[in-house]
């Protein structure tokens, strides 16, 4: 295995061009949205909230109930505790949320506020006024990490705040799932169905499938409606085990295990035949049940779509940019189907990416993706919607994955995991390749005999 310094190319440039990364508080607030009756609160200036809110609205096409402590020049100098207090009381009065999920920002972290202590003080001081409204806080400076790091910190904060210490009791059919930032509501739903197929009851934290799946509640609600409840979290210490999905859930998983004694199993990916097989084996072991017929059929369907699809993947060069765990989950699909990851860009030098099947991993931005794609003659761009400009300039198709997908309807339901999610992914990718396939012309073989010009080779199978 190569050393980190050889595999990772850290773009040491001063001007990041077309950012791939978004902010940790956005990730933390998104995780809070997976709680039922929650209203996330950013401790910072108004813009910290507004930009994140707009991006989430555009992606999910849902009302996003964010609030801000609206720090101004004076409070930035004097300290923001009063703002947090006032915000919490105002929110309580107006929306009566069950949880106010608070995250800090670059502004308040640069000041060095001890918001954690402030929040505890506020909860105690206003115990009567706040009633059942619970406060939870995660420190998420904008200048350290991206969405998945912020998400991870919020999940750890929820565990610390809401999950009781272990008492030695176990509910054998109940398991915890720590869902990663790279999972859409559709992904969460799919994983739940797979787990339930084994007769197990999952408690999923956070559960975006309950809150941001786009359902119509039939009344007006000023907080999230659906998601993990406080009562759910109050039962997590008695589960048979915990599945932590994605490497960025490792810290939260370890924290949960230390707190409750519930053993954590780390699942590093749920996309692709072998990854899903590992999950299914794990669930069969935990439940002591055979693999259900419907999953066996789904597996067979995936194998078939891989058979049909592989013609189109062979030899393709892929330029992909995503946060580490989405990249780790999706990368093997391409290489495993015969394509090559010619340009790989991510936001953080996460050690597990060492093992990704590619020459190098650039820690950079979509500017690096664009340059890399041009230099390596990529056939396809894979990233979030911000890749659209590069796609236009390079004349290459863009396959949108992850967050944000602001120029798509139904982004919340994009399902990339499980046998069915993988099957859909393989088919959608193959169809994209078919749409942009090279059509043969005499010029392809003008230099016949040199071994070049086999572009048209896969067309026979396209039908």
């Amino acid at each position, binding site marked *: 295995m190569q050393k980190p310094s050889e595999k990772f190319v850290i773009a040491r440039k001063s001007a*990041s061009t077309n950012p791939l990364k978004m902010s940790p508080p956005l990730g933390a607030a998104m995780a809070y949205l997976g709680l039922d009756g929650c209203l996330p609160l950013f401790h910072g200036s108004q813009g910290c909230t*507004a930009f994140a809110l707009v991006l989430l609205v555009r992606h999910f096409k849902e009302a996003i109930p964010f609030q801000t402590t609206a720090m101004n020049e004076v409070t*930035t100098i004097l300290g923001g505790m009063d703002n947090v207090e006032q915000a919490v009381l105002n929110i309580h009065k107006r929306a009566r949320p069950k949880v106010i999920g608070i995250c800090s920002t670059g502004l308040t972290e640069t000041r060095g506020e001890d918001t954690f202590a402030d929040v505890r003080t506020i909860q105690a001081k206003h115990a009567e006024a706040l009633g059942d409204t619970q406060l939870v806080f995660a420190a998420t400076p*904008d200048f350290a990490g991206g969405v998945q790091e912020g998400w991870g910190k919020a999940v750890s904060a929820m565990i610390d705040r809401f999950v009781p210490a272990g008492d030695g009791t176990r509910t054998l059919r109940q398991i915890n799932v720590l869902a990663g930032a790279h999972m859409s509501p559709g992904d969460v739903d799919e994983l739940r169905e797979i787990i339930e197929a084994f007769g197990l009851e999952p408690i999923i934290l956070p559960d975006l499938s309950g809150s941001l799946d786009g359902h119509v509640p039939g009344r*007006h609600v000023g907080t999230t409606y659906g998601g993990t409840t406080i009562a759910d979290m109050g039962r997590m210490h008695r589960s048979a085990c915990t599945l932590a999905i994605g490497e960025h859930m490792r810290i939260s998983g370890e924290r949960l295990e230390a707190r409750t004694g519930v053993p954590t199993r780390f699942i590093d990916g749920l996309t692709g035949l072998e990854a899903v097989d590992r999950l299914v084996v794990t669930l069969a072991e935990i439940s002591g049940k055979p693999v259900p017929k419907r999953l066996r059929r789904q597996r067979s369907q995936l194998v078939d779509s891989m058979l049909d699809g592989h013609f189109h993947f062979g030899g393709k060069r892929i330029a992909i940019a995503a946060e580490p765990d989405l990249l780790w989950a999706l990368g093997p699909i391409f290489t495993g189907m015969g394509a090559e990851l010619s340009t790989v860009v991510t936001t953080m030098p996460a050690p597990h990416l060492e093992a990704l099947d590619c020459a190098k991993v650039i820690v950079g931005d979509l500017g690096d993706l664009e340059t890399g794609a041009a230099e390596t003659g990529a056939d396809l761009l894979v990233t979030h919607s*911000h890749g659209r400009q590069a796609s236009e300039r390079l004349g290459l198709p863009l396959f949108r994955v992850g967050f944000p997908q602001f120029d798509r309807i139904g982004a919340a339901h994009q399902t990339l995991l499980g046998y069915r999610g993988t099957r859909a992914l393989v088919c959608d990718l193959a169809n994209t390749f078919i749409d942009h396939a090279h059509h043969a012309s005499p010029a392809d073989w003008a230099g016949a005999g040199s071994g070049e010009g086999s572009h048209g080779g896969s067309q026979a199978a396209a039908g």
Partner: protein
Amino acid sequence: MLKQKVQELFNEPGCVTNQGKSDAERKKGCSIKGLTPGAAAGGCAYDGALIALQPITDVVHLVHGPIACAGNAWDNRHAASSGSELYRMGFTTDMSELDVIHGGEKKLWKAIKDVIADRNPPAVFVYQTCVPALIGDDVEKVCEVATEKLGVPVIPVNAPGFVGSKNLGNKLGGEALLDHVIGTMEPDDAGPTDVNIIGEYNLSGELWQVKPLFEKLGIRLRACITGDARYRDVATAHRARVNMMVCSQAMINVGRKMQERWGIPFFEGSFYGIEDTSDVLRTMSRLLVDQGADPGLIDRAEALIAEEEENAWAAIRAYKPRLEGRKVLLYTGGHKSWSVVSALQEVGMEVVRTSVRKATDNDKARALDLMEGEESALVGAIPAPEMYRMLEEGEADIMLSGGRTQFVALKARRPWLDINQERHYAYAGYVGMVELVRQLDKAVNNPMWATIQKDAPWDADGNLLTTAGGEG
């Protein structure tokens, strides 16, 4: 320095809202209400500055700050360009923990050098944000040195988020133009009918809906500040004869100071609505003639207005059979909502409520007049649950509002039309108002509504209802 600038903007004599305030109120600044912790909506000052300046298409917009400020925000609006796409790219210093500790000035300097080398822009706009402002990065000095050493104008936009609201940021963006851009270049083609339009951002291409009207009258757009603008247009804007201020709250300081410095008269106008558009053409022609343009312009303007109005009203009336009797909940900031009301009434729609939250007294009077003195129809803020109730119970058939209340209507399973600035359709000028009515028709008459307003044929527990289809 920034503090002085902000205080000066709060004292802006050209601002109507300001004129009505006491000294003490004025000192507190604009939209104090919007900054209540836990009950605030809208962007920060940096957001406002970006909105005001980013439509300048051929320059690099470089954001000095941690990833939130650019990473969450780049390429997020529909300001359209007829040329360069450089303005849509996101550039940021992406400050890390180490930059916060050691200071970000050097990184900013290198970033400026790199973007100039890579992109060769006519100028770079550098946006200050909260974190570097807090650690004391002197963005103005870095920009000054960069301009000198690199020979390309590097413009500091000093509007960190915590200084205030989006609206204040719009004005600070305008200040950056006044301090560093407008008047720094001389045009070689100044003419007697040159005008600027200030505060129009060409969202969804709205500028192009009205530009042909000016062209028909021989009026030349020197600069639109800043919709579809090139840097050079803005730098030479001081040679225009007349300034029109659109959405005057946002950049009133620019119009007033240009009058002070270069004697350019300005007027406030709107392209939103038929009568408004006519007023703009009329006033602009008159002011140009006052400034020495050919007096025949006034008659030509009247002729064009008559023709355009007739065509527009005829086109709008064609929708009457499809829209007559439908009830509208109009929820905007309130300024100029009356101009929409008149178009809705022309097609026989009934405006059941219209909000006048931010409207001037004049706007309120005109709206009231159109609503035939029905004062209860003019309202301030409507709480979301009340909005939901009105729509669900059928007191209104459609809501026209901004994106923030979109899901109140949609979750009540009622039609909604975006008439805020983030909208995807252009509604400016005569053609724009016709387009608005066309979109209304598309929204309210979509056959989907009947389908989805029917409840599922089972009860809350999933038991089938005996009567097929159940209640609607």
